[in-house]
């Protein structure tokens, strides 16, 4: 019964619109705010569709325990956590295997963006808490974290912009929501890039893709990331750009 219903879902209709009315290359509504936590070195808050994610950066600071310090560069410790009420069933607050893997790949993605060699023997600790989720929370976490790093004044090559692309009902689409992620043929591919260099720093995929589908998906992801990059820059500008009015003294 339930199965039959699922098979009837049209993920992209004749007008090219998805279940939530978006076009295949359209992002969900995305709002980013930089610098909102008073006691962090830097912070950012992101609302992306139903995802609500807060990112905070402490450091560069002393590494504890000390033996984990790198005498040549700063280490990045990324902590992705989900609030117990952020998913349909209550999440166990203890970080699971998924949380640990996401923390690892997101931290590694940020390493390429930061001039780590300028801060040997220190740690840059990134804490991300997901308060509400609906597919794409890891890319929201990474996108927010890179704004938080910039807000902390940490020298960076570039921001990291990230988005998930995938396949639903045979269509390659940008920024899947949860209903789409549950499609029978769903493929989910989170991508994070340095938008000014087209370097890929995060890339995961699960599902069954053909090579042409990968080509299409990565092109769509790159395009989406550039759009996200603009919003990240806008968020930082909104906090730091002081417009001088005419006749006003500095």
């Amino acid at each position: 019964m339930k199965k039959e219903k699922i098979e009837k879902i049209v993920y992209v209709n004749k007008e090219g619109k998805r279940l939530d009315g978006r076009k295949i290359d359209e992002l969900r509504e995305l709002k980013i705010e930089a610098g909102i936590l008073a006691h962090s070195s830097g912070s950012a808050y992101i609302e992306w569709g139903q995802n609500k994610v807060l990112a905070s950066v402490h450091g560069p600071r002393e590494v504890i325990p000390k033996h984990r310090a790198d005498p040549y560069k700063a280490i990045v410790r990324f902590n992705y956590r989900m609030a117990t009420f952020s998913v349909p069933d209550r999440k166990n607050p203890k970080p699971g295997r998924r949380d640990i893997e996401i923390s690892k790949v997101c931290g590694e993605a940020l390493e390429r963006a930061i001039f780590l060699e300028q801060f040997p023997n220190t740690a840059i600790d990134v804490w991300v808490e997901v308060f509400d989720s609906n597919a794409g929370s890891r890319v929201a976490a990474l996108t927010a974290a890179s704004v938080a790093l910039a807000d902390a004044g940490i020298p960076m090559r570039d921001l990291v912009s990230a988005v998930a692309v995938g396949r639903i009902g045979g269509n390659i689409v940008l920024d899947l929501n949860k209903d789409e992620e549950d499609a029978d043929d769903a493929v989910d591919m989170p991508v994070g890039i340095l938008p000014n260099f087209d370097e890929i720093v995060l890339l995961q995929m699960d599902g069954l893709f053909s090579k042409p589908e990968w080509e299409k998906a990565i092109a769509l992801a790159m395009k989406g990331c550039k759009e996200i990059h603009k919003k990240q820059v806008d968020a930082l500008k909104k906090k730091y750009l002081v417009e001088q009015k005419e006749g006003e003294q500095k």
Partner: protein
Amino acid sequence: MSIIWELRADKVISALKEGKRLDERAFDQYREIKIAKDVYKNADGSARVVLGETDVVAGVKFVLGEPYPDMQDEGSICIGAELLPLASPAFESGPPDKESIELARVVDRGLRESKAIDFKKLCIKEGELVYLAFVDLYAINFDGNLFDACSIAALASLLEAKIPKVEENKIVAGEYKGKLSLSRKPVLSTFAKIGTNMLLDPSLAEEKAMQARFSVATTEDDMLAAFQKGLGGSITKQDVDYCIDTALKKSKEIRKLL
């Protein structure tokens, strides 16, 4: 970390400047692979994979359990990876760290997402009782590329795995109702990025020198089942394209051995 490995990493890089790998392999060449199946009698399925000097074993145990709430008529697999301290001076005992969790999850992803296993066949009573196939991987010697060695070992052990007989909701020890059949053979191919080179099946020395790691799981019908980029460096779209093409070609060699 031993200084000797730092020095070997330097040698890897200088050899690459002359277009060579330290062990003289082609960039798209695996080390020698040996696969032994059915090596442990108490396991429902088992395998040992030796990839160059890297050595891993896998064992399958079926356990009865309740289905996940969103998949009432499906059993499941659960992959675990143990980096035994006996395998390397760099490994420590204790609960799985992020390295072994990533390893297990990438191996899991290739097997699961390729739809190689029909989870419906692992259902005993809908909504009540299913088989959970625990595949546990143990690294016993670490000389680079645990990802591919573990992926091959997990696949080989599952290909041989026998499903235990169940009577009155309990497993009957030593009796089997048949083999677990897999519809596909997903093979993981892992590459190390060093400079601008992508090297298949990195050795330990090459892993010490790599800036980034990329793995792709492929199937015999030329589909891509999983990606994982790791470490702090970056890769380009061209790098990924090269890895995909190489993996589609070279994974066939491994499938022949299974």
